């Protein structure tokens, strides 16, 4: 079904469906210039529906991380557009983009990337503090998420006092605490042992199914590929395959 909707910065743009949450059009990212020009991503056109559990795979240097960065508004494309929730993020101001990321996107990183001077609880709470969520609501959500990721009793520990698996659980809780519509995860299981990785993936899969959150992974992990409903394969910055699974 083709629907006409109003899109920030690109009014009257035709998008695939009202259920579309991520759309990239002719997305390119180049680094350097002249002889040192590197085309990290070439003409990427992707449409991701709400609630999809998508894995972007490909060899190292194929452009997975670049694509994820562009979708998350962490980098600016050389050309093309990124639409999230029907909004062209490339036309947003810095503050608008920050607020959009804060309210609509959850990030999970390979290296956990927690704030070392904050406790586990404070790391999870961080985004809600930016949003100005009242203390009672914050505490309720943090308690619920800590229970969900199995970190009860560890809230006052700093990241350095937690194992890798526990840190990644905190990172997952932080990504989900603001109830974003999209979760972008860059090789979230790469630094975890297989059991911890599998547990985390099951937890994310459950969230995807129960809360209809959209997950986009960049990964080499077969466990993620097994669970993914859709696999986009990148080679040398180009999308070479887009497989949907029932």
């Amino acid at each position, binding site marked *: 079904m083709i629907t006409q909707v109003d899109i920030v910065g690109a009014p009257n743009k035709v998008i695939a469906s009202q259920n579309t949450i991520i759309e990239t059009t002719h997305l390119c990212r180049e680094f350097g210039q002249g002889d040192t020009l590197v085309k990290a991503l070439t003409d990427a056109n992707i449409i991701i529906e709400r609630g999809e559990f998508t894995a972007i795979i490909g060899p190292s240097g194929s452009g997975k991380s670049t694509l994820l960065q562009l979708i998350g508004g962490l*980098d600016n494309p050389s050309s093309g557009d990124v639409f999230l929730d029907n909004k062209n993020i490339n036309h947003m101001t810095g503050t608008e983009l920050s607020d959009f990321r*804060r309210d609509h996107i959850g990030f999970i990183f390979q290296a956990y990337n927690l704030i070392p001077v904050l406790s586990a609880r404070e790391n999870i709470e961080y985004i809600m503090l930016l949003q100005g969520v009242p*203390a009672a609501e914050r505490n309720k959500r943090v308690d619920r998420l800590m229970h969900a990721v199995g970190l009860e009793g560890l809230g006052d520990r700093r990241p350095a006092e937690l194992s890798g698996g526990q840190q990644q659980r905190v990172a997952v809780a932080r990504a989900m605490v603001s109830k974003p519509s999209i979760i972008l995860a860059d090789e979230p299981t790469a630094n975890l042992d297989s059991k911890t990785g599998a547990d985390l993936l099951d937890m994310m899969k459950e969230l995807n199914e129960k809360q209809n959150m959209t997950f986009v992974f960049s990964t080499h992990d077969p466990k993620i590929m097994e669970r993914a409903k859709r696999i986009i394969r990148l080679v040398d910055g180009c999308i070479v395959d887009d497989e949907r699974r029932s």
Partner: protein
Amino acid sequence: MTRATEAPKLDKASSPATLISRLAKRSIFRNTRRTLLTVLLISCSLAAILFTDAFVRGMVETMVEISTQTFLGEGQIHRVGFREANDIDLYIEDTTTLYQQLNTTTAIQAFAPRVLTGAMTSSSENVASAIVYGIDAIKEAQVSKLKLAVTQGDYLSGIDGEIIIGEQLADLLEISLGDRLVVTVSEANGGDLSQALFRVSGLFSFNERNMDIGMAFINLAQGQKLLNITGVHEVALRLQHLHQAEDKSLPFWQTLNNDQIETLSWKELVPQLSSMLAMTKYSTLIVSIIMYILVCLGLINTMFMSIFERQTEFGILLAIGTRAKQLFYQIMLEGFFIGLLSVTVGLLMAFVLCYWGSIIGIDYSELEMSGLTLNEPIYLILDASSFATMGLATLAVTLIASLYPAFHASRLQPSFAMRKTL
């Protein structure tokens, strides 16, 4: 691994400002050694600036006191034109009215009338030129330190024939206490030579060569008689407070200046000292500016080291929704906290050092500066306004130094800051 008790609930504050402040406070102690070294650099610089300021204040006061209290006085009255021409004919004739006026001026604590002239002093062994002052022994003791400077013999008692001379002049003339000395001068209003015989009743030492070799003192009445005048050439003033000499708006400066007499403060009488002291104050300013530049560079270096180490973290903060402006405030707050800590430590260090210097004093005995011998220790002067001003200036400098790193951090592109983490 779990703990028996659940983590305590977080504070009630829900504003991003509280979060930023918490992050900033914790971040400055992430590398405690580096933070403490930075704090030490800034606080030592602040203490050094305040010590220099207190020392300069002490030195200025000591030099002014030495200059004014030794002999000059905090002000002097002369007949108009006397100082320029050094003409002994230009003396103040109506001393009665002037003395009445001086006695009724509350700002004036004491005054000492003087006559003075260039003279030839002759002993049986040698001849030397000197400035001979005729002084009122009692009044002079209230204004200058001449009486205290007498090292041998007695101060003037008012009897004719007494003379006190500097020790070095005595050496030059090869005379000592009780020896005879002939003083030859030109009389006023005509220029006839006038001579008188004196006996050395005392020797003085101001520890300043020009005074000790070039001055002699006789009683005022005999001086007037020798010069054949009834008035005086100079009246030295001792004011109630030193600062009155600098405040030309005080009424007595106007009433004691007319077409007959001029009254000048020590600043006008010894402009070279005044200029030197002004230059000293500029030196303090220059030292302060250099110190502040060093503080700035040191802090910028520390902040950048900290920022480069935490670049990935800043990328994460920006990625998860921290606004660039909020990151900017966080770095500025870190600078502010470092500044606040440094200023507190620096002020304490400065207070201890300056207080010690104000009690013990720094001895510069026999050092001569701008024609003045520092024969008294320099006592440091603590000035509350300097402490407040320099403290605030240091805090301002730390904030200024934090601007560049804060701008740098806030302008980071998240993907660049995180490099290959996402």
